[in-house]
């Protein structure tokens, strides 16, 4: 035994050190900050399905996490397979991959590329081709799964005039009666004139004949960014209604110096709506939405049952205003006090989720001294369902800085 001493010592030393290390490694996330939903008013049921994605950075580490009503789960605590992906996949994509495993193979992980109802799951995208050195090789990828027969129809088609565009981004898919419509925003940038031309296209496909049958341009805007501000086009697919509609919004955002209000940054952005167009997928009709003039009602963020909802942030309040696009009149409005000082009006677009006529808004924060608001609004009745805060426990003891960002909110299935 003595002559095996060195070997035994080496084996035991190694096994013990690694054993202790990896047993303790499991406890790492208990030392990290823990977040939870803290209700200020409203109904807990309103946030039952809410999941807030976030990232936390300190001088030492960077971690991703998800918060729901049960608390915080860090990505490092997930299984090895989950961690190997490197990021949180959208919950909707995970559901589709679980339920339609074969259909979802090779598909882009973008919920906007899918349309689902009781009969079909449809997919439309313009995936990036790593090996393509010419725009001619970019294609539409279309696939439709019939849920009743379990048959899949899929095909690729070249994108017409692809080389004319610098960039084509899909924004949504609709499907009805073997016809798939894909909404895209196509951009051309002229380096000489520094002008950008943006077009919103509706590409319509006959999935039975596997053909592109129509390419319609809804809006064509040429703009140039300046010191004064910038133009932008935003798209909104209506949330659950009998008719499938697309809203195209053209706005101009101006930079304005702060009015001295301590809450906002040195420059604020003022958004002016230039035009809004409603497009009906079924009839192909375009209709201009007459917007209220000379009223600062903010920026539109949702379209539900012919009502366009606007949001603006001012004086630490979030105001939501409903505008009847048919009757061309403002409906009701709702004022909600905000906890965050750094919220800007455009946060509602990037940090808000509208699902089944309910707005879920979780603005991102700057540091742990001020954490996020959680706001849930029933848009149809324009009532506040839930107002709360993301509370933190277990902040770092040594007073070092933390940057916390709340990303897009999602809903559990």
């Amino acid at each position: 035994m003595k002559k095996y001493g060195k070997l035994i010592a080496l084996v035991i030393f190694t096994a013990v050190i690694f054993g202790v290390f990896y047993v303790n490694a499991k406890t790492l996330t208990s030392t990290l900050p823990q977040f939870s939903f803290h209700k200020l008013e409203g109904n807990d049921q309103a946030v039952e399905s809410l999941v807030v994605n976030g990232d936390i950075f300190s001088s030492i580490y960077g971690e991703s996490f998800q918060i729901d009503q049960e608390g915080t789960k860090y990505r490092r605590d997930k299984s090895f397979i989950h961690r190997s992906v490197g990021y949180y996949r959208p919950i909707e994509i995970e559901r589709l991959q679980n339920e339609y495993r074969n259909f979802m193979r090779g598909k882009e992980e973008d919920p906007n590329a899918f349309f689902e109802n009781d009969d079909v799951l449809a997919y439309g995208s313009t995936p990036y081709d790593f090996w393509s050195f010419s725009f001619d090789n970019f294609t539409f990828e279309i696939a439709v799964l019939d849920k009743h027969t379990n048959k899949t129809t899929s095909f690729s088609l070249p994108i017409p005039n692809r080389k004319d565009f610098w960039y084509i981004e899909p924004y949504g898919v609709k499907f009805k009666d073997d016809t798939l419509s894909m909404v895209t925003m196509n951009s051309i940038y002229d380096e000489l004139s520094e002008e950008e031309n943006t077009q919103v296209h509706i590409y319509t496909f006959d999935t039975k004949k596997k053909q592109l049958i129509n390419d319609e341009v809804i809006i064509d805007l040429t703009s140039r960014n300046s010191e004064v501000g910038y133009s932008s086009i935003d798209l909104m697919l209506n949330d659950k209604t009998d008719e499938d509609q697309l809203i195209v919004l053209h706005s101009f955002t101006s930079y304005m110096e702060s009015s001295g209000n301590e809450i906002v940054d040195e420059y604020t952005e003022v958004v002016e709506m230039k035009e809004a167009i409603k497009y009906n997928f079924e009839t192909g009709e375009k209709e201009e939405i007459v917007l209220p003039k000379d009223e600062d009602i903010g920026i539109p963020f949702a379209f539900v049952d012919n009502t366009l909802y606007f949001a603006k942030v001012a004086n630490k309040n979030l105001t939501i205003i409903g505008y009847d696009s048919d009757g061309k009149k403002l409906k009701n409005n709702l004022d909600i006090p905000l906890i965050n000082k750094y919220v800007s009006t455009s946060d509602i677009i990037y940090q808000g989720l509208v699902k089944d006529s309910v707005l879920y808004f979780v603005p991102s924060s700057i540091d742990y001294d001020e954490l996020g608001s959680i706001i849930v609004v029933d848009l149809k009745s324009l009532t506040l369902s839930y107002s709360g805060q993301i509370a933190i426990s277990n902040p770092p003891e040594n007073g070092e800085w933390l940057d916390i960002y709340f990303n897009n909110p999602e809903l559990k299935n």
Partner: protein
Amino acid sequence: MKNFFKLLNFEINRFMKLYVVLLVTVFVLQIIGTIIAAKGYMRMANNAVLQGGMSQLEFIETYEKFSISNALYSVWFLGPIAIGVTALLFYVFFIWYRDWFAKNTFIYRLLMLPTTRMNIFFTKATTIMLTVLGLVAFQIVLLVLHNNIIKWIVPKVYRIDLSIIEIANAFEYLSIIIPNGFAEFVIAYGLGFSFVVVIFTAILMERSFKLKGIILGLAYISASCLLFLSPYSIQYLITGKAYLYPEELFIVQIGIWIISVTVSLIVSRYLLKNKVTV
């Protein structure tokens, strides 16, 4: 089995002197580095606060608190790790070639032992893996020592304390040798084992066929690497689409690992039994 442990013990004992020198070198250089970093910081703090008139808070806001990262990113820390890696990488080859080219052609005696020749292969591979893991375990122990040295030299007001787990996770190069989770550890060192086995096979090819063997060995290493990288390359670089889900890709990768190691062992067994010349 008894012969395996006898041979393994023999290989470990042969390497032990050099191994201890390596560990002591890593120890001394890293500790010196930590002491230099900590004392340097305190000298700067004392100059600024006691003589320069700065308050402690002002100093911390300007220069940030001291943490083990101040030591970990210095050449005193990274250098010994590089020395350790290089030494063990060198030993992957030396463990075989020493038996042919040292004073006595020891390989003759090894090959004549009344035991299966693959035991020679396995004991050498196990020696490499044990010494690598031992060095990494030693590094983990050293991290504890670094932490304590910093606590002795730098007062709490000036320092950020990190646990060993936090240190291992926060620094990229440390997280390569000390992976985040146990699953990652098994995968990383499983990969390391397959690397050792493939290199050993290439060495045996060279010992069997001399110059032709070098070319054969290099080709074998290249083919093994290509085979191993193929699932990810095909999925992400060639098709650009994720046709396999992560768990499926993982299973394919495990399968390829098993194939790679098995083929290497079969080829090595054949070479040791029939082709290796003294």
